[in-house]
């Protein structure tokens, strides 16, 4: 029995607690509507029961009131009026709760006091829903910065779950400035754009969406605190700044290294030295210019310093024309001044070939000599005066009578030289061509284009001492045919006359026993430039 009584007590207490909680909500709703609603009789639906109430200032007894309602042309039904004292505003309210509230139909409500109708109203119950605030509001920090996860449970109403609209209000703790987010049907929301590491208060309220059901906004839930994640941007920013700084450093270093020479020139310019023009002046002679001069007798200096007014002649033997048949010994010597040219082959002329030139063996011997000579180009440059097998230069004679002969003479004159050059091959010939750039080919012209002046005694050359006659040959262009000769022309060599202009060159005299009648007396030595 005691157990049963205890159980009953517990059940009673629970029921009372339930009622009071309902009552708390009820009272707050009444209080709120008392302020907001303008109708005389205010009605709302709570948990599918319609409650209509009115305020009365005077002290009245609830039994004085009669509350009736009807719908769908049915008979009027009565409702028991109750009273409620609002503690907050110290007001008394009379209300009536309809036991079975019909929805989706027009309700006619009337309040009578002492037989007289006090208030009357027609309404559809489904349009005045006053819901309870959402339950179990939770605010959690999401994994990301500046976000909060808000979730709640909808009010316990069957058939109305999909007709709810929610409003979420959030503000920084202690601040009155709050933002509102509206969300339909769904019972969770993610708040974005929040400050990091900040405490926020969150409220939620609910209302029917207005399509099938209408109503008032529910009361706000109790605020729930949530803390956003602390900002983890600082280390990230530092890392980014370091990274960018590193990249900038690398870029600047790359630029500096690629242009370091330019930059160095600008910042630390070189002092120009003339050392490259004076090789060995500073290293060997240690700045002593006189010593360097004495050491260095280069051709550059020799050329630029004009010791002699006249140009130094080069030893050159010119072969004059010798008529093998009729002319006999018509010798003409031509002294040919030749400009020294370091790139020219050393041109040596020997006492001219005689009429025996016609004989092929002589020509062959000449060829052999020339070949040997060409094979030793060094010897050519060194002792010009000693060697008699030097290169020949044939000059075309001016005064030849016959034109035809002139032509032939030209060819004959050019033949030995051609012979000379063909033996060595075309390469040397080509070089000689380039070397003798001033010489023009005048095949067929038969004219000597040089401006050389020759003077020599007619036939005999009185032997002189070791003195020499030299010619300052200033020639700009001697027409020579140095074209490579064909073999046919070589064979013709013997038939043509040779031109010989013999210098009075004692050196060559004894070397050429073949040249008989020509006076090779007289010596000449050309003080040639140092090759």
């Amino acid at each position, binding site marked *: 029995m005691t157990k049963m009584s205890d159980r009953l007590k517990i059940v009673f207490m629970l029921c009372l607690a339930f009622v009071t909680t309902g009552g708390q909500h009820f009272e707050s709703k009444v209080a709120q509507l008392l302020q907001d609603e303008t109708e005389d009789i205010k009605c709302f639906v709570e948990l599918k029961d319609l409650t209509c109430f009115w305020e009365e200032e005077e002290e009245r007894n609830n039994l004085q009131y009669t509350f009736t309602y009807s719908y769908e042309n049915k008979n009027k039904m009565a409702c028991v009026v109750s009273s409620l004292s609002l503690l907050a505003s110290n007001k008394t309210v009379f209300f009536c709760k309809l036991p*079975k509230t019909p929805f989706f139909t027009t309700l006619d409500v009337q309040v009578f006091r002492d037989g007289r109708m006090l208030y009357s109203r027609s309404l559809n119950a489904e349009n005045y829903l006053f819901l309870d605030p959402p339950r179990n509001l939770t605010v959690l920090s999401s994994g990301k910065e500046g976000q909060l996860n808000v979730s709640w449970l909808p009010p316990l109403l069957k058939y109305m779950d*999909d007709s709810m609209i929610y409003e979420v209000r959030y503000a920084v703790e202690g601040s009155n400035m709050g933002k509102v987010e509206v969300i339909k049907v769904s019972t969770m929301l993610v708040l974005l754009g929040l400050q990091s590491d900040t405490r926020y208060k969150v409220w939620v309220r609910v209302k029917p969406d207005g399509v099938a059901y209408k109503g008032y906004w529910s009361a706000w839930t109790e605020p729930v605190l949530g803390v956003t994640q602390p900002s983890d941007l600082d280390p990230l920013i530092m890392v980014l700044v370091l990274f960018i700084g590193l990249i900038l450093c690398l870029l600047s270093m790359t630029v500096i290294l690629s242009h370091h020479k330019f930059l160095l020139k600008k910042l630390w310019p070189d002092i120009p030295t003339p050392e490259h023009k004076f090789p060995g002046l500073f290293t060997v002679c240690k700045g002593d210019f006189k010593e360097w001069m004495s050491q260095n007798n280069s051709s550059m200096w020799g050329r630029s310093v004009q010791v002699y007014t006249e140009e130094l002649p080069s030893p050159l033997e010119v072969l004059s024309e010798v008529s093998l048949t009729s002319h006999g010994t018509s010798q003409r010597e031509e002294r040919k001044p030749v400009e020294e040219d370091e790139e020219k082959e050393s041109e040596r002329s020997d006492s001219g070939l005689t009429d025996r030139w016609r004989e092929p063996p002589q020509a062959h011997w000449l060829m052999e000599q020339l070949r040997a000579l060409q094979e030793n180009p060094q010897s050519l440059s060194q002792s010009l005066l000693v060697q008699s097998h030097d290169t020949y230069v044939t000059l075309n004679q001016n005064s030849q009578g016959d034109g035809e002969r002139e032509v032939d003479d030209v060819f004959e004159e050019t033949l030995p030289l051609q012979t000379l050059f063909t033996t060595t091959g075309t390469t040397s010939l080509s070089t000689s061509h380039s070397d003798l750039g001033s010489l023009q080919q005048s095949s067929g012209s038969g004219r000597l284009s040089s401006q050389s002046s020759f003077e020599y005694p007619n036939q005999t050359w009185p032997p002189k001492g070791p003195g020499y006659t030299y010619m300052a040959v200033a020639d700009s262009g001697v027409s020579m045919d140095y074209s490579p000769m064909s073999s046919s022309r070589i064979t013709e060599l013997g038939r043509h006359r040779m031109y010989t202009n013999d210098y009075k060159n004692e050196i060559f005299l004894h070397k050429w026993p073949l040249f008989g009648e020509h006076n090779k007396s007289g010596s000449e030595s050309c003080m040639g430039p140092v090759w």
Partner: protein
Amino acid sequence: MQTFTGLVSVLLVFLWLGGNLVSPLRPICDLRVLDHFVREARDSEVIMRGCRGGCGAMKSYFVPLTSVDFAVLEHMDVNGQAVEVQTGLSLLDQALSNAMKTVSNSPLANALDNNISNIHSLGQILHSLDLQQARSTVLPDDSAPASTQTQEVSSLPELLQVQSSFLRGKVRLLLSAAPACQRQNS
């Protein structure tokens, strides 16, 4: 004879296929369609309130009952609800068609025409949910059966209000409680 039986069997196969292909409609469980119809019914009420002239004659219409008792609803089976909804929709269809004949105001007439087409669409939705039970419960126009399932209204505004309440209440509760949709949700 064998060819004849073969032909008959082929025809039967086709009929069976045709029958199976026609009937299974995809259930329309999204209540936003109904919400659209509800909004348009409410628009008709608004137009009615603003109508000045040519807004229909005073005439009595037989309309379904719209009241919903949740306590009772929980104990009612779906088929009973479906019958109720079906008859109610047909009643509304008739009443709106009759009312449109007397309306000369073009916005109102258009709104009424819209409502009628919406009611037809609702019939299709119910058919998709296999809830179109009562096909032959169309009541004749002239008769005024004192059915417990009907009520009488005397003006077009009342008719429109009934329509709105009916759609928001009974029709919506039926669609939300349809077994075809419950299977999808669960």
